[in-house]
Structures are given as C-alpha cells and as structure tokens.
C-alpha cells in the first residue's frame, strides 16, 4: 500500500505571500515536484502556472519530474529577477 512522503517545503517571493508561511512540513502522496506543485497551487491559489516554475530538491536544481523521496526538502523557484 502506498504511503505518504514526509516533505519539508520552503516558500519564497509570491509563493511565500500566497502560502502565508516561509516553510512547512507536510505529508504528500505526490510522486513528483510537478504533482506536488499542482496540489499546493490548488490549496494556496498560487498565481503561477507550473510551466514557469523550477524546483530545487535538497539545495540542487532538479527536474519537475524527479521522483520525490521522504525527507526531501523541496523549494519551488518562481521566475527569477536578480541583478
């Protein structure tokens, strides 16, 4: 039987404002960051389409199709605007 993964999520910029928090620990059945983002976007009303989002897992850029593992630290990266 499929078990939920324990994930640590941090939020930045517009996602932080919409989620109303900087981070949270959640249990999720999402198998990839793409699935996870869609779940959270539905929950918090994120304004950005998943196609414009990148993801960092455990402080490295990864594909939105990477398999998530329990214990992962997941950070969604909205379009950047440094400099």
């Amino acid at each position, binding site marked *: 039987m499929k078990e939920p993964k324990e994930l640590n999520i*941090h939020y*930045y*910029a*517009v996602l*932080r*404002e919409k989620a109303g928090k900087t981070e949270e620990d959640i249990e999720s059945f999402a198998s990839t960051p793409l699935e996870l983002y869609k779940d959270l976007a539905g929950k918090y009303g994120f*304004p*950005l389409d998943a196609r*414009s989002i990148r993801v*960092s897992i455990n*402080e*490295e*850029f990864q594909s939105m199709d990477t398999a998530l593992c329990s214990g992962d630290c997941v*950070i969604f*990266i*909205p*379009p*950047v*605007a*440094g*400099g």
Partner: protein
Amino acid sequence: MFRISDVPIDADLLSKELINSRAGAFVCFEGRVRNHNDGCEVVSLKYEVYEGLAVKEGGRIIEEAKEKYDVLEVVGVHRQGHLEIGDIAVWVGVIAEHRGSAFEACRFVIDEIKHRLPVWKKEHYMHKESKWVNCSENHGH
C-alpha cells in the same frame, strides 16, 4: 568568490579583493536600483534570496567564467533585503592580464546571475500596488 550580503555593498572594499601584480585590467559591474522600471516610478524594492542555492549557483557561475575566459580572479556579491534608489543590488569584479577577457568574463557573470540565481525582486511603486517582478499571472503571455 560569490556571496549574498544583508548589508550595503561596499564597492571600494570589494575591489581591494582583486589585487594581483600580474593584472593589467580590472573591470567591474554594479547593478543599481533605478527610479523607474517598465514605465513605472519605483520608490524602493526588496530582494528575497534563497541563500543556500544562490551561493552555490553563484559559485558555479564564477567557476564557469574562470574556465571559459583567461582571467585571474572573479568576485560577485548580490544584496538581499530592502533597497533604496541608487543602492547597489549586485556587484561583479574581474581582474585579468588583458582587458578583452576581463570585459567578457564580467559580462558573462552578470548575464548568468540574472538568469540563474534564485533571487526575486518586489518593486514598490509611487502610483500603484507593489509587485513581484516576473511573477504576475500573465508573465510570458
């Protein structure tokens, strides 16, 4: 060397990290907060940085510049927090024996920083609501 700074960037101090008697050329770039963007009057702004990844990615950009161009040293710093008009948002300095590679490496580093660093900018305007740049619902449409 790449760093994220919570305090105002001191360009003079940073340039002192780039001293080498083989260097014939020093090129630096400062990105400063402008009083306008996309036709809107900007009064101040905030940079939010995912610091752990930004430091790693900035370090990678600098290593790439050193491999790609014939330079002696490269330093980069990005601010986070609240900034006023005229404040330095990002600083890149390069020393090299000759000017060509110093200019090219400096340009490469700032271009890559703008594209790759996990940094977000919220602009506060005179006449309309604050906004996260590049993060509107219609971005890219």
